[in-house]
């Protein structure tokens, strides 16, 4: 079973024979501790938060093994990936995917499905906490009202607006769900307070996880339906992330805050906003990884699948939709 590796501390990564060597180093660039060796076959991808020292031989080696490295800046923004060479090229799939983007009604139909799935999963979260003595009735009925309007939209920007309204109502409910923290408004780049930091950080993790799963299918990550295909972003990952954010990110946030795994002392606030300290990052990443590995019994496949695999299954469904095999139905949490 391949694993994701998260690098927080400054490390020199090199190829040693046919395996990976991790050498920690200090500010002066001197070795600071014993090397660790990790068999390359067990690595699925690298998430680089700290400083990484590596040469082209290493990247060639990673590329050969299909290992991507995702990079994040000081504020945990996703800055880019070293993407191993595409190994699943499918011309026909690409053409089919593009056609679904260019034909307006086909594109809107898919975009609606993403929002529909996202809204459903958001409502599921709210109802869960509503049943646990948090009064969220107003938010629930408001979002339900928005959700009924999804199918009536005819343009993508209109749909995006609706999605914005749903999210705003939803995020406003975070104050009620998480005691001791306030949400205020959603703020980004940089986020202004603790909840906003966790949302940004979590969304970025979710985005990277979706991107990683798309990479292992024939879909092209740059051709998206809800989000506008961007030149610098793998926007299909953003589309998929909409569906999974409530389940993967928001639930993890509620968990780490309500169980006090992440505390106010894990954040640092300064003039430019709020950042998550390394301790907080580690705790959150650990909780997020656990979430991805958690399994559920799949209804139609009749076997246990991990949350991470659910993302991949979503890619399969999307592939089948664009190839005209089976209509896409968004993932809706069923338990």
């Amino acid at each position, binding site marked *: 079973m391949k694993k994701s590796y998260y690098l927080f501390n400054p490390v020199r990564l090199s190829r040693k024979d046919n395996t990976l060597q991790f050498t920690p180093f200090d500010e002066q660039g001197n070795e600071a501790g014993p090397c660790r060796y990790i068999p390359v076959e067990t690595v699925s991808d690298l998430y680089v938060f700290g400083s990484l020292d590596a040469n082209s031989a290493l990247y060639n080696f990673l590329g050969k093994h299909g290992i991507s490295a995702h990079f994040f800046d000081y504020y945990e923004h996703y800055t880019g990936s070293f993407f191993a060479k595409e*190994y*699943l*090229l*499918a*011309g*026909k*799939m690409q053409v089919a995917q593009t056609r679904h983007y260019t034909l307006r009604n086909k594109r809107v139909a898919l975009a609606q499905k993403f929002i529909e799935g996202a809204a459903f999963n958001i409502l599921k979260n709210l109802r869960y906490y509503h049943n646990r003595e948090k009064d969220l009735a107003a938010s629930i009925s408001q979002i339900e009202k928005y959700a009924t309007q999804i199918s009536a939209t005819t343009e993508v920007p209109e749909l995006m607006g609706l999605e914005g309204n749903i999210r705003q109502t939803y995020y406003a409910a975070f104050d009620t769900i998480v005691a001791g923290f306030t949400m205020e408004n959603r703020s980004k780049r940089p986020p202004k307070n603790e909840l906003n930091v966790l949302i940004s950080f979590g969304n970025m993790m979710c985005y990277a996880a979706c991107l990683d799963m798309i990479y*292992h299918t*024939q879909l092209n990550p740059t051709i998206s339906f809800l989000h506008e295909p961007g030149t610098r972003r793998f926007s299909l990952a953003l589309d998929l992330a909409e569906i999974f954010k409530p389940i993967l990110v928001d639930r993890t946030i509620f968990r780490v805050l309500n169980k006090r795994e992440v505390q106010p002392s894990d954040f640092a606030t300064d003039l430019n906003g709020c950042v998550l300290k390394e301790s907080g990052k580690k705790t959150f990443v650990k909780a997020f990884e656990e979430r991805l590995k958690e399994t559920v019994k*799949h*209804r*139609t*496949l009749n076997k246990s699948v991990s949350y991470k*695999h659910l993302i*991949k*299954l979503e890619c*399969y*469904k999307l*592939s*089948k939709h664009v*190839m*005209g*095999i089976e209509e896409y*139905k968004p*993932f*809706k949490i069923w338990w």
Partner: protein
Amino acid sequence: MPITATHVNLYHVCHRELWLHANEVRMEHTSDTVSEGKLIHETAYPQRAERYREIVLDGVKIDFYDPKAKVVHEIKKSNKAEAAHLAQIKYYLYILEQNGIEGATGILEYPTLRITETVTLTPTDRSEMVKWLTNITVILNSLTCPPLLHAPICKRCSYYDFCYVGE
């Protein structure tokens, strides 16, 4: 599109898989069964590489061909889909014949089961082969994907999640 031995093999397993494979929707990389098979293929007969040749004829690749004895070897992991394995070898023999090599035979090998089987091309096979190839061409050129197979073999197929994920 040239018809490969894989196409002939898949035709005898699942028409849907044949179509998906031909449309470049590949799943082999996700399958442990496939990598196991590959490992067996690479390690079962370590001495073979020196005497045998890999040949390519009409876009069809034969991994182990013994030109002196005119024998095609095909290594498989398990005999669960034996009909498909036999069809694959018969297609090799058919292609050899089309290229002027008469009287070649095949050996189907299951190293882990310690079973080997001799395969020859009979007149019935030749006429069957023409039918197979016509049907395969129809499937490859079809714009729609064949329906689900709903067979016990699906459970072990690398396309299982893809095919049966539903909602």
